[in-house]
């Protein structure tokens, strides 16, 4: 809400010397936050004075232009009292005219500094200004010629032009709809600014009594439209201009001046907060009827939009049909035009919820709708209509029709019981009941009783419905700045939960492994899943669709972190960072298609069954971890050659995370997009699949702008964390000597090393301390389709030195089982 200061001060007095900042500081502290103080002349500094043109000598120039060499009386403003010589390019003035003169030293908007300078053979000491040069509009047809009674030469011209007029822009919260009016703001000044007094309520006026002579109005839906007031002005001059003060104030308030009739309704809306609608009375046919729209009824509103109405919409009709969307926007057929001479003024009170729904349904935001949907004082319809009539008559030369139509009456305000000590209990301040009563009365409430107060809010405060609402009124007037600072004493906490701690460790582990965490948006499109190469029946294609995504290309919640991560990796490569290791943890969305989430009542706690129904309706949202590596895993340099990322790095990173959680991961081959069909590991913990890792399919690399051999992993972190070992058993070590045995086994190339190792482990028995694959060989020496796996086995007993041959026997048993299980043959 933008409020010209002069308008505020028309309605309330503040002590002499109160600065604008003092007013806005106080209003900010009581809830009307200052956004900005603006004035049209704020960018003008230095001497800007009234000048009287004494002489004007046209001088044609070689370039075809004619300039005027003028002398201008600027009084004593130039320090000498002598006329000022000024060159002026405009011609729309004559000697004797009063003009706006900026003298050397002045600065105009845009940082335009004025000096005395040689031009066209004269020393031009200043400038005669146009409206545009002063930032007052686009009018550059000529300079401003002031009215003859504007003042004396040498006087500061700012007050004459309204350049000093300050406008205060406030942020108005939805609960303070009354502050969308000068009336409301002035009232806030009255209660907020020390020493403010003399509030002159613009809605407090004597209005003519209702009679039967006015335009007939029938309200069929009294709940939707509790009050409808109609007045009429005849003989209105459609060509009458809007007075300057009104144009200035409407403009300063952020609205566009249109015509006197429209401007007056807007002016009164700004002044009182009550939206007014004006009809061309000659275009009305018969009685006005207010009702709800019928299914599929149509209306073309003032903005030229043809709308199909909803049975929830309140409409204003006459014999011709629908002529307006009540309280939201008028219709085209009865619109006031430049030939309108009779105006029917409507000031009606509308149901706020209905206004909100209609506005949202038809996507209409208007100044009227904004006020009506937040709640307007229902008691001021007659006063607002009367004020409009007064201004139309005064400035438009019309006559007020004697008819006064008033249908309905304002709803009663509720009486709310408020504990006298509530404000003290809520705020922690020693606020007495007397203070509370005083504050409540200051904001317009009626208060009776003691102990438990009976409080009736003023009609302009429909937001005050609960006892707690009144406590806020008291506390804000006592002052939020006076609330003391006291730390509560929580019971001893239990700290972070184990999963919360482990999640942090996962991040730290990967950072330690050289991966950098990124955060991406969880939005995804089908094209992204195509780029991943997901099969048509891949469960990751089952996505939660957004009704209103920001972009059609990313209209779903993602089921996998990989698209975002691969895209981020691609961007890094694009920026010239060719070696990239990144990771992300985030929830993914896996629809359960479990039906709607109920809208539960709010006047009681939901039952357990209701809460379960809420949760059941939500998609599964497991926390995933994904990582991508591309380029070199180990950089090259003076120490040796670089090592590019390999599928094994992705597996190893997941193993590092698992190890941080006390878990061991086993890997087995699987074919799954977006990985290379021969280089994808399915990762399991205790037989449960937790995710996948490996080299990314070359086509997928290409799709994301990544080089081949990029690697990636994605695991379900919730599964890992759920399985994390909580209390690890302390290890014991044998101090007896170790016996080492190496074996090399030849198997078919297709036999997984993990199977061979498992057989060796089992066959070796309890004496086996560790086993390590130290070489994999393929080539002539083992034959086509075969590979040799070389293992180092370490044997040790916990309680004794191994006897001669004991380790060898265990080794032989291991090899025998491996042979049986995997067809392994020991290499000689």
């Amino acid at each position, binding site marked *: 809400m933008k409020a010209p200061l002069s308008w505020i001060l028309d309605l309330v007095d503040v002590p002499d010397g109160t600065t604008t900042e003092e007013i806005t500081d106080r209003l900010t502290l009581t809830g009307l936050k200052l956004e900005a103080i603006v004035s049209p002349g704020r960018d003008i500094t230095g001497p800007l004075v009234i000048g009287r043109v004494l002489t004007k000598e046209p001088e044609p120039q070689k370039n075809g232009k004619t300039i005027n060499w003028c002398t201008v009386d600027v009084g004593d403003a130039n320090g000498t009292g002598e006329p000022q010589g000024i060159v002026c390019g405009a011609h729309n003035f004559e000697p004797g005219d009063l003009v706006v003169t900026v003298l050397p030293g002045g600065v105009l908007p845009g940082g335009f500094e004025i000096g005395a300078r040689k031009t066209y053979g004269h020393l031009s000491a200043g400038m005669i200004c146009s409206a545009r040069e002063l930032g007052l509009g686009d009018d550059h047809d000529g300079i401003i010629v002031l009215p003859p009674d504007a003042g004396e030469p040498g006087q500061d011209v700012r007050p004459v032009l309204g350049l000093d007029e300050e406008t205060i822009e406030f942020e108005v919260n939805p609960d303070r709809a009354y502050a969308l009016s000068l009336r409301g703001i002035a009232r806030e000044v009255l209660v907020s600014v020390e020493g403010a007094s003399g509030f002159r309520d613009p809605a407090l006026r004597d209005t003519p009594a209702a009679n039967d002579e006015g335009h007939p109005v029938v309200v069929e839906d009294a709940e939707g439209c509790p009050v409808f007031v109609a007045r009429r002005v005849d003989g209105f001059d459609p060509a009458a201009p809007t007075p300057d003060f009104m144009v200035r104030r409407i403009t300063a308030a952020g609205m566009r001046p249109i015509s006197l009739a429209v401007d007056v309704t807007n002016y009164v809306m700004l002044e009182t907060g009550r939206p007014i609608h004006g009809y061309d009375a000659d275009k009305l046919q018969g009685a006005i009827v207010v009702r709800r729209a019928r299914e599929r009824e149509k209306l073309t509103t003032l903005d030229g939009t043809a709308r199909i109405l909803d049975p929830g919409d309140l409409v204003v009709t006459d014999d011709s049909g629908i002529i307006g969307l009540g309280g939201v926007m008028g219709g085209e057929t009865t619109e006031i035009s430049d030939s309108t001479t009779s105006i029917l003024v409507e000031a009606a009170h509308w149901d706020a919820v209905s206004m909100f729904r209609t506005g949202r349904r038809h996507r209409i935001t208007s100044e009227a709708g904004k006020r009506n949907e937040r709640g307007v004082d229902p008691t001021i319809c007659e006063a607002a209509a009367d004020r409009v009539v007064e201004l139309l008559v005064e400035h438009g030369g019309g006559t007020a029709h004697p008819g006064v139509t008033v249908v309905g009456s304002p709803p009663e305000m509720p009486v709310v019981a408020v504990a006298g000590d509530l404000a003290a209990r809520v705020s922690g*301040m020693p606020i007495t009941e007397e203070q509370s009563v005083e504050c409540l009365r200051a904001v317009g409430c009626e208060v009776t009783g003691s102990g438990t107060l009976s409080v009736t809010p003023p009609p302009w405060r429909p937001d005050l419905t609960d006892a707690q609402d009144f406590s806020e009124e008291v506390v804000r007037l006592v002052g939020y700045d006076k609330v003391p600072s006291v730390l509560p004493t929580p019971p001893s*906490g239990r700290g972070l939960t184990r999963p919360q701690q482990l999640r942090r460790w996962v991040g730290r582990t990967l950072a330690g492994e050289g991966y950098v965490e990124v955060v991406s948006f969880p939005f995804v499109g089908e094209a992204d899943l195509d780029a991943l190469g997901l099969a048509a029946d891949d469960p990751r294609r089952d996505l939660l669709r957004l009704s209103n995504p920001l972009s059609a290309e990313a209209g779903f919640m993602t089921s996998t972190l990989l698209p975002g991560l691969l895209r981020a990796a691609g961007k890094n490569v694009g920026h010239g*960072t060719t070696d990239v290791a*990144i990771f992300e943890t985030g929830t993914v969305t896996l629809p359960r298609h479990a039906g*709607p989430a109920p809208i539960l009542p709010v006047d009681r706690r939901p039952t357990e069954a209701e809460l379960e129904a809420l949760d059941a309706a939500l998609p599964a949202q497991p926390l995933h971890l994904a990582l991508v590596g591309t380029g070199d895993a180990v950089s090259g340099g003076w120490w040796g050659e670089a090592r590019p990322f390999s599928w094994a790095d992705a597996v190893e990173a997941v193993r590092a995370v698992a190890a941080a959680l006390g878990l061991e991961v086993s890997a087995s081959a699987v074919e799954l997009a977006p990985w290379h069909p021969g280089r994808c590991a399915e990762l399991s913990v205790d037989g449960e699949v937790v995710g996948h890792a490996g080299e990314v399919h070359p086509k997928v690399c290409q799709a994301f702008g990544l080089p081949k051999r990029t690697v990636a992993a994605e695991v379900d972190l919730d599964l890992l964390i759920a399985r994390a070992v909580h209390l690890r058993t302390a290890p014991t070590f044998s101090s007896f000597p170790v016996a080492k045995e190496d074996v090399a086994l030849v198997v078919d190339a297709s036999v997984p090393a993990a199977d061979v190792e498992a057989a060796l482990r089992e066959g070796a028995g309890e004496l086996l301390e560790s086993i390590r694959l130290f070489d994999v060989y393929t080539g002539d020496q083992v034959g086509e389709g075969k590979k040799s796996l070389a293992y180092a086995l370490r044997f040790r007993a916990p309680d004794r030195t191994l006897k001669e041959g004991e380790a060898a026997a265990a080794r032989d048993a291991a090899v025998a089982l491996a042979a049986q299980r995997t067809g392994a043959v020991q290499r000689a």
Partner: protein
Amino acid sequence: MSGPNTDYDPVEVTPLKADQVEAMREAALAAIADAADLDALKQVRIDHAGDRSPLALANREIGALPPQARKEAGQRVGQARGAVNQALAARQTVLEAEHEERMLAEETVDVSLPTTRRRRGGRHPLTLQSELIADLFVAMGYEVAEGPVVEAEWLNFDALNLGPDHPARTMQDTFWTEPAEDHVVLRTQTSPVQARTMLTRTPPIYVVCPGRVFRTDEYDATHSPMFHQVEGLVVDEGITMAHLKGTLDHFASQLFGDGITTRFRPSYFPFTEPSAEVDVRCFVCRGVDSASCRTCRGEGWIEWGGCGVVNPRVLVACGVDPEVYSGFAFGMGIDRSFMFRHDLEDLRPLFEGDVRFSSAFGTEI
């Protein structure tokens, strides 16, 4: 070698003559002194202290002397050999020291070479900031509560006193999911976590909820469809605005520096009443000569978040008896706090995944 001297005749044994022994000793000591390195010394040891060295051979001749002469000759040879061994050991020490010095000198490297073999990882600064904030509250005895990002409409709105026709619903531009009849949204705030907490725990409740939230804001320098919030909720007997103020003052001083306090301005949120905007004292200018301060843009204060006393209607919907308990709640943008704490003007680097950005913050902030 001579045979045993059985007849007690004094036998002339030349190598055992005093001058001879002395000459051997001198020769040995001279050779030791001349040995330039450990290899040379090794040969000297063989030549002058080995089994076949003159002194060793002379020693063997002692038996050939008459008993009465043996003692003197034995002493003479023994002293000479002792002196040689001593000299050898001393020289050995010196040469070893020289050798080591030389070796170390030869092994000198250029320590200014880059040691960037392993790339350093890093965690995302918003993760770090969330953890930092969580830790501040955990230190006060709070717990960290969590909830789903895709949330039931009832929990995101209705339970928080934002009924279907509440004008404030349009303040938060919500992502809705399909089908709309499912009443499922992307949470617009972390407040549904507060509702969930009240629904599943009994007071006293002291929790803080950091998390991702979503609004349909076009992505630009100051808006993002996804951002991070931290909300706090306290429900206990006798909780007042003063406790809220005390908590936020403490939070502000922990996050922005000693002495940094907060300011409340009346505001409106459906879930709190009274409600306040909370500003934090600018930690750069501290409100002194603010006019030129970039961080607070001359205000002396920085808009930080919203807060208030929990609306009794919310307590009722979440099963808390408002006659017994009261509470406060507050919420701040983690991204926003990060931006002014770390002087970031454009938020987009937070979500672009450029490793140069996250890496700059390492693993703690």
